[in-house]
């Protein structure tokens, strides 16, 4: 039996099309995926992301232990509530998971990891705590629900639905969070639009979801979440990177912090020994068709492969991420093998869309 989030009954009652996603019974859409996509780009949409796992890390060694665990450096987090995106690497430099870590004090953090990797992540973290002897405690917070409210009107509609949240969240800068009672409000997301990610006790999820719906926030499924993140140039774990891929080959070099030479972290020596061999660029299909993952890409400088591809509702064209030879630049003509036919595409810098505007 797939697992159910605290909002499962709401999705079923709304006649959402449900699919098994990483062992969870999740809504893929509530009707039209494209309409849900446009709601987020133009107004406000909400996603049940309670399948993701929040972990609380506390203890006097929290900061030093995280600095050894993550490829990005939590030492740069100074302000309470500030968030950081990072990869967690294995000793070979492959990506165990990508995650967001929120800093509260040097002794207190919250980490949010992907659903499909949650068990693997927790096992690895516990192994690292044991191996390092760090004085920290790690608690899985399956008692919490998470709702992402995204879009140009997401913040205003959240305040309309939850008036008590406004004072705590009005001054939040991008990529930071605040607590309002038992609600954590983060100005983060996975769509390329402004908005909040709300973390709250599971028993309050339904009331908050319904209040947001009443304020005009459209329920959106994982289908729209995927096309939105693709347009926004954001990687999806398991598709654009995994345990066998270095962040340097997955377009994530910007998340690897090597500034402090005295800092060691798991996977660092492997990254230093194996510099980037591929680069990630966007593709826009110029012929008719739809790009998907694992299609061969032919360039003047050798072959590459798409990692994610779909139809972009905002651009009304097919787009993809492609892992390509280092010498390929944005603005080049390439060909993609789509079911045995070579179709024309153009390389572009990511992202494709940000804050409602096409950038390509």
């Amino acid at each position: 039996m797939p697992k159910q989030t605290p909002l499962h009954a709401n999705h079923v009652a709304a006649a959402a099309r449900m699919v098994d996603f990483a062992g969870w019974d999740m809504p893929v859409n509530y009707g039209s995926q494209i309409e849900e996509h446009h709601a987020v780009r133009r107004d406000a949409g909400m996603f049940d992301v309670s399948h993701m796992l929040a972990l609380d890390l506390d203890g006097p060694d929290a900061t030093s232990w995280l600095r050894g665990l993550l490829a990005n450096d939590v030492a740069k987090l100074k302000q309470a509530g500030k968030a950081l995106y990072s990869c967690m690497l294995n000793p070979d430099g492959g990506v165990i998971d990508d995650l967001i870590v929120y800093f509260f004090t040097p002794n207190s953090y919250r980490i949010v990891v992907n659903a499909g990797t949650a068990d693997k992540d927790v096992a690895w973290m516990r192994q690292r705590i044991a191996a390092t002897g760090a004085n920290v405690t790690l608690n899985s917070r399956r008692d919490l629900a998470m709702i992402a409210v995204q879009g140009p009107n997401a913040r205003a509609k959240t305040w309309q639905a939850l008036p008590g949240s406004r004072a705590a969240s009005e001054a939040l800068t991008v990529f930071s969070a605040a607590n309002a009672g038992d609600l954590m409000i983060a100005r983060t997301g996975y769509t390329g639009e402004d908005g909040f990610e709300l973390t709250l006790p599971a028993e309050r999820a339904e009331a908050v979801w319904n209040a947001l719906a009443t304020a005009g926030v459209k329920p959106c499924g994982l289908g729209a979440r995927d096309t939105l993140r693709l347009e926004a140039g954001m990687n999806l774990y398991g598709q654009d990177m995994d345990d066998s891929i270095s962040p340097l080959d997955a377009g994530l070099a910007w998340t690897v912090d090597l500034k402090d030479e005295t800092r060691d972290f798991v996977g660092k020596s492997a990254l230093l020994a194996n510099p980037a061999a591929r680069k990630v660029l966007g593709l826009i299909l110029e012929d008719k068709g739809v790009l998907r993952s694992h299609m061969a890409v032919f360039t003047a400088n050798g072959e590459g492969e798409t990692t994610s591809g779909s139809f972009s509702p905002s651009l009304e064209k097919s787009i993809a991420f492609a892992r390509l030879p280092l010498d390929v630049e944005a603005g080049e003509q390439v060909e993609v093998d789509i079911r045995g036919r070579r179709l024309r595409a153009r390389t572009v810098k990511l992202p494709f869309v940000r804050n409602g505007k096409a950038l390509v």
Partner: protein
Amino acid sequence: MSNIPADLKYTKSHEWIRVEADGTLTIGVTDHAQEALGDVVYLELPDAGRKIAANEACAVIESVKAASDIYAPVAGEVVESNQAAVDAPESVNADAYAAWLFKIKPDNASDLAGLLDAAGYEAVANA
């Protein structure tokens, strides 16, 4: 519940077939299929004059989610494909029975006996 008109024939692979007065077959995908596919964004249809075998993958329908083959219900020759549907793939979602995809002239009219009726397809769609 998806809509399964009683006057059409069906395949297990979710195509519908209308037998026209002149014996040609008009083919599309069922309401159940469009619902499962989600928003349709691209169609690749066979050209007129192409000879196709029964169960041959002769067209492609792509939704935002995935690509799916469309199979020839019987052997025959393509006489026309629906350019209006190619230009507006979302018409398949709006009305899967109005947005036909292609027409074929069957090699043997007797092959039609192997197709499902509405009750037979309903059992497939609900399986």
